[in-house]
């Protein structure tokens, strides 16, 4: 078994208590209204001292001391980030200026944690924290989709998305994260075992169903291997794919079989989603450790993550921080591109005649540098490929990043503000299909396409392989 990361945050625990436990505390008091999204059991009292104490803990914490100290002292207030931000370019609202948002946290940092701020106050940008500030931070930190497009062109190398994450972690410790994060994560970590609450039996039925479906569609017998001890790869997808992205999963299983992969799915833990990336180190750590535990249980050699940006990034970048790193982690884009290159998988692009374009998920692209493998797959699988403009590190966020796609209260925001740049990009491409290897992106893009009535079909990258594979 893996050791659970000995992390102070875990003991502190910012998981939501089950609804019933906290009812007594909140019943009598006047409830605060959180208009931007629903929050389960938000902290109602002493928010300011708790906020400052939490920030103090974060600053003392080795993980963030350098980052905060460095970023908050380096920004030259030039606003180049604003010119890169898809959201600010759409809304032109003060609260969407990346540097303005970071300044909210900087003001608290300066006021309570620096001598100059204590002595000189507003002159150096320090500001005493007020109740309203906390509410404004909640909204502003969640409007930022953490896409990091701004970081690419910051002349100082500052990454406002990381400041957003730190801000969200602080407010997350105050139980001020969206209900959809906290409730799903609770189910994943302490309840059914995954964020969509799919019981094991239903999950196994789904695997059988997918096998039958492939047989019906293509005539091939393709297996979704389960709990195969000692396999080379433990394959894990965002669990929502089993509800919403059957084609992606079928294409992936077919590809893995065609490539001769020795792989398995674990029925003990089958959800790659890690909402911790968006609001909490505790959740990040716990979810990663569940993944590692499953890998140990099945004695696999590597972990292969399905079409999901944030899950791949969290596992690849944070496993050393929060867990005990024993397993190389790969994204399925890297696997399939390699298999095609080596000739282990053969494709017939003639079956996909329509024009296809590709959306770089922020966490796969800017976050992990996986720019070329998916392109190589798509180009091998279709006849006509066009790029979105701009693309790669300059690609625009789908508008549902930072976990916002899971928050129903943010639907209008995503459709009418955060996703607008993406809509323009898609329209300009003229493509019939839009491939995006990320569960978050796919959901948001599908909703955008429906809402804005775009003449495009959103698919996963492996969806394109179902018909193109020569098996």
């Amino acid at each position, binding site marked *: 078994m893996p050791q659970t990361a000995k992390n102070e945050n875990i003991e502190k625990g910012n998981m939501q208590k089950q609804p019933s436990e906290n009812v007594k505390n909140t019943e009598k008091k006047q409830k605060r209204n959180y208009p931007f999204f629903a929050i389960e059991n938000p902290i109602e009292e002493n928010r300011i001292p708790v906020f400052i104490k939490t920030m103090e803990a974060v600053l003392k914490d080795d993980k963030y001391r350098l980052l905060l100290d460095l970023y908050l002292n380096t920004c030259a207030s030039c606003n180049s980030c604003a010119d890169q931000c898809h959201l600010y370019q759409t809304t032109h609202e003060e609260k969407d200026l990346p540097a303005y948002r970071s300044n909210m946290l900087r003001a608290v940092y300066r006021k309570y944690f620096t001598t100059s701020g204590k002595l000189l106050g507003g002159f150096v940008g320090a500001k005493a924290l007020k109740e309203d500030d906390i509410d404004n931070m909640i909204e502003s930190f969640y409007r930022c989709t953490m896409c990091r497009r701004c970081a690419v062109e910051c002349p100082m190398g500052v990454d406002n998305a990381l400041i957003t994450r730190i801000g969200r972690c602080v407010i997350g410790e105050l139980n001020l994260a969206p209900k959809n994060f906290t409730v799903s994560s609770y189910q994943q970590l302490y309840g059914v075992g995954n964020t969509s609450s799919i019981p094991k039996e239903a999950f196994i039925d789904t695997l059988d169903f997918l096998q039958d479906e492939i047989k019906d569609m293509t005539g091939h017998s393709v297996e979704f291997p389960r709990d195969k001890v000692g396999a080379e790869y433990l394959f894990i997808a965002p669990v929502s794919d089993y509800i919403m992205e059957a084609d992606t999963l079928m294409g992936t299983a077919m590809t893995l079989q065609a490539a001769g992969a020795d792989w398995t799915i674990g029925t003990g833990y089958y959800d790659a989603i890690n909402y911790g990336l968006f609001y909490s180190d505790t959740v990040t750590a716990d979810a990663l450790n569940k993944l590692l535990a499953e890998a140990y249980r099945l004695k696999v050699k590597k972990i292969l993550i399905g079409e999901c940006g944030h899950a791949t990034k969290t596992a690849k970048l944070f496993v050393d921080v929060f867990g005990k790193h024993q397993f190389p982690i790969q994204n399925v884009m890297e696997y399939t591109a390699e298999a095609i290159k080596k000739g282990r998988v053969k494709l017939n692009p003639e079956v996909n005649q329509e024009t296809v374009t590709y959306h770089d998920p922020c966490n796969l692209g800017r*976050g992990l540098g996986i720019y070329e493998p998916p392109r190589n797959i798509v180009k091998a699988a279709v006849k006509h490929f066009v790029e979105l403009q701009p693309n790669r590190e300059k690609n625009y966020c789908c508008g549902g990043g930072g976990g916002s796609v899971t928050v129903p209260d943010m639907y209008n925001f995503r459709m009418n503000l955060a996703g607008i740049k993406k809509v323009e990009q898609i329209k300009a491409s003229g493509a019939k299909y839009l491939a995006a290897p990320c569960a978050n992106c796919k959901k948001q893009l599908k909703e955008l396409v429906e809402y804005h009535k775009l003449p495009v079909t959103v698919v996963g990258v492996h969806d394109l392989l179902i018909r193109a594979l020569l098996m």
Partner: protein
Amino acid sequence: MNVASFLIGIVLPYIAVALFLVSIGIRINRWATSPHPLKWSLYPMPADYTGQIKFMLKEILSFRALLHNNRKLWAGSWLFHIGMALIILWFITFVLGLHAGIVLRAGLAFLIVFPLYLFFVRLASTKMRTISSPLEYFNLLIFIAIGILGILLLSFNKPDPTAVRQYFISLILLHPAAPPESSIFLSMLAITEFFMIYFPNSRMLHMISKYFTYHKISWESH
């Protein structure tokens, strides 16, 4: 020599330089030794050491990111930094015995014109005002003040260059002689000393912190 001359001309130069170096050293040491377990790489990143050097040179010499994205700010800040470079260049050549007055004049002029320009760019747009604290304006004003004092000195109260050079050399050789008698020269010296003490504790240290934002965070691959 009066008290002001003694303090500003003889004592403070050493204190200022010492604080300047020590504070920068402390900062660098803190940033270089702070643990940073959280990986937060940003792609694309230079593939190797040579690539990193190339990127850095391009960024330092041309202000690449600003040049590509923000011409208006780029022009102002690039020329402003050129002004600083000219002053430093002048100082070194001056101590070495060259009298490149034109370099000094150009440098001082740049230090007035471009910070002033940036000051108004910052003030003129709501978007810039929103993210600026008084400190941002103050930092620009320091440079403008240095520039103006310098021009005044050259125009109305120009001390004998040989005497000024002797004075600087005496400081460097740790046998401080009295500074040239000129209240403007003394004011200029004072403001420069203030600047040296203030600089390492301000965001102007970005010339150094920037190294860490790239090397320790963005360019740390997984």
